[in-house]
């Protein structure tokens, strides 16, 4: 099982903040996102600016995932102020 988290506009586009993905076979972050787009076509438009973290650390898109990973997709951050 993969625990998938979505934030900010990405969560709005998917209509939910958390998804569970049943573990079938090894896949990369990129492949996982392509699978998500199939179920949630509105996510596709975000791909070019998207950031991804695996287990709370920024990750490359070609990283292979392991069963049990938490994968977060989110837009560029905008904390802070002024």
């Amino acid at each position, binding site marked *: 099982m993969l625990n998938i988290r979505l934030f900010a506009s990405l969560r709005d586009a998917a209509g939910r903040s958390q998804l569970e993905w049943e573990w079938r076979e090894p896949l990369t972050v990129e492949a996982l996102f392509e699978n998500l787009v199939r179920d949630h076509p509105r996510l596709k438009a975000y791909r070019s600016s998207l950031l991804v973290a695996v287990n709370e*650390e920024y990750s490359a898109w070609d990283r292979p995932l392991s069963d049990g990973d938490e994968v977060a997709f989110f837009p560029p951050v905008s904390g802070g102020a002024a």
Partner: protein
Amino acid sequence: MIRIVEEPIDVGSVLAELEDPGSGAWVTFDGRVRNHARGKSVTHLFYEAYGPMAVREMEKIRDRAMQRWPLTQLVIVHRVGRLEVGESSVLIAAASPHRSDAFEACRWAIDTLKTTVPIWKKEHYADGEVWVEEYAG
């Protein structure tokens, strides 16, 4: 001290907590909600965080700053949830024996926070709302 909080940030009490007789220079950055942005009137803001990762990234900023400059403290507090105009969204305080290091570290910390810490801001206007998702500098 690295914290994500939902209640208002009380700058005075954070600074009072940070007594340190070896530090002569305290530089703070206090970021507050402005009443205008992108040519529009802002009614309030909403900040959302990926909490555990945001704390980790803020801890990395602190650790890297304390390696790079001779600081005695680096504090980062970020507020999430609904914020009204004039309220503080972020407070960074850097303390060092000499002011030059405190100024540089504080500036570097807020610049870095804005590009690495997973927190997002939604601006609310009289006529709508928008997630701010481009690094605005």
